[in-house]
């Protein structure tokens, strides 16, 4: 299995954000996206996730499931957390389990040390706890490609260590991760792509 993106060009509101960006990712590899604000890190992730359309270029997941689009084999974690305040922490995850299919809610909660808060209304969580809840979703449902946009924002040291373990497990299981971040991820990336310097 291999993720290939060729000559991607992204335009937002009439401005070329980046042009001719290519990348190739194999199972077990972590790619760190860097670059100044506005260099298109988030746009590139959304583009790979199939949420945005590229002006030029192509993305393909060779060796993946033929029936599924890349978006259905990938997790995307954005800046904002898709967390409903009126539902409890466990109910939030249970919905995504039902919607995305499969997974054990208790185990996912435990991975990010949220078990104690399972029946707590999600609206009362702190920013870091909400982030952990958003990250618990990607552990809940196994998917081969993770697209993470500033995944470590708001995490404390202990949660960061848990997150590093989670990333290690995903990579050991043959998964792929693309993470856009300015700060160190806690794990040396296999590749770096600096959008500020991309041709």
């Amino acid at each position, binding site marked *: 299995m291999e993720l290939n993106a060729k000559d991607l060009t992204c335009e937002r509101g009439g401005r070329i954000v980046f042009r001719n960006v290519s990348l190739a990712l194999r199972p077990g590899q972590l790619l760190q996206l860097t670059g100044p604000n506005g260099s298109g890190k988030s746009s590139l992730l959304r583009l790979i996730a199939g949420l945005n359309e590229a002006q030029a270029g192509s993305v393909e997941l060779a060796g993946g499931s033929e029936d599924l689009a890349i978006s259905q084999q990938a997790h995307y974690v954005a800046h904002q957390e898709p967390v*409903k305040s009126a539902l409890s922490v466990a109910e939030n995850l249970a919905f995504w389990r039902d919607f995305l299919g499969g997974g054990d809610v208790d185990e996912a909660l435990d991975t990010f040390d949220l078990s104690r808060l399972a029946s707590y209304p999600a609206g009362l969580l702190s920013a870091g706890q909400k982030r952990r809840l958003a990250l618990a979703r990607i552990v809940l449902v196994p998917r081969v490609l993770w697209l993470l946009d500033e995944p470590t924002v708001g995490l404390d040291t202990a949660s960061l260590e848990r997150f590093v373990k989670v990333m290690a497990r995903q990579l050991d299981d043959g998964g792929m991760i693309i993470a856009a971040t300015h700060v160190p991820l806690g794990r040396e990336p296999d590749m770096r792509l600096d959008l500020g310097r991309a041709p």
Partner: protein
Amino acid sequence: MNLILALIRRDLTLSMRQGGGVGTALGFFLTVVVLLPIGIGPDQALLARIAPGALWIALLLSVLLSADRIFQQDYEDGSLDIMTMGPVPFEMVALAKAVAHWLSTSLPLAIAAPLLGFLVNLEPAAILPLAVAMALGSIALSLLAAIGAAVTVGLRRGGLLVSILVLPLYVPVLIFGLSASQANAAPGLTTASLLILAAIALVSLVVSPLASAAALRSYLK
């Protein structure tokens, strides 16, 4: 199918816990129906004549009032992004959310409306036809409202725009809903009107998910 049910269940739970939705709509409905007889005066015959029309208009406006919230929150917190990445077509997601709106807002309103009819001197013989017509018409109301909500989801204060966009689509529902709600209608008229209402609901059922999903996708891009 299960995951569509999961989505409908979640939306119903949310609308029950957050209140707002059906509460606001019912309150608005009650306000219109209470104020109307006071504004028109105590002429009972006149009130009885305009009662079905007044109730229908109150229903349309109450549904519109809650319409802009169908997709708003899920758009703002990024849930819609994730839903496009799910295993079902996005059209089904749009349909599920419209169904949840129908169950949580339009249907309760359609059930409450005939009961509140006594405030505007609704004839007892008109209660049953009105209830049937509203239950059927409310399906189309929610589905059409979803289109308006999807088209304006990224706009702040899109509520007014939803009303203006959806208004022309509501006119047929109002016309045939009203003609199905008459107490002493000519034979066959009620049935024919109900059939047309059902037809409008079926057309909306096909068009609404396609249109809403297309509008939402263009916002997410």
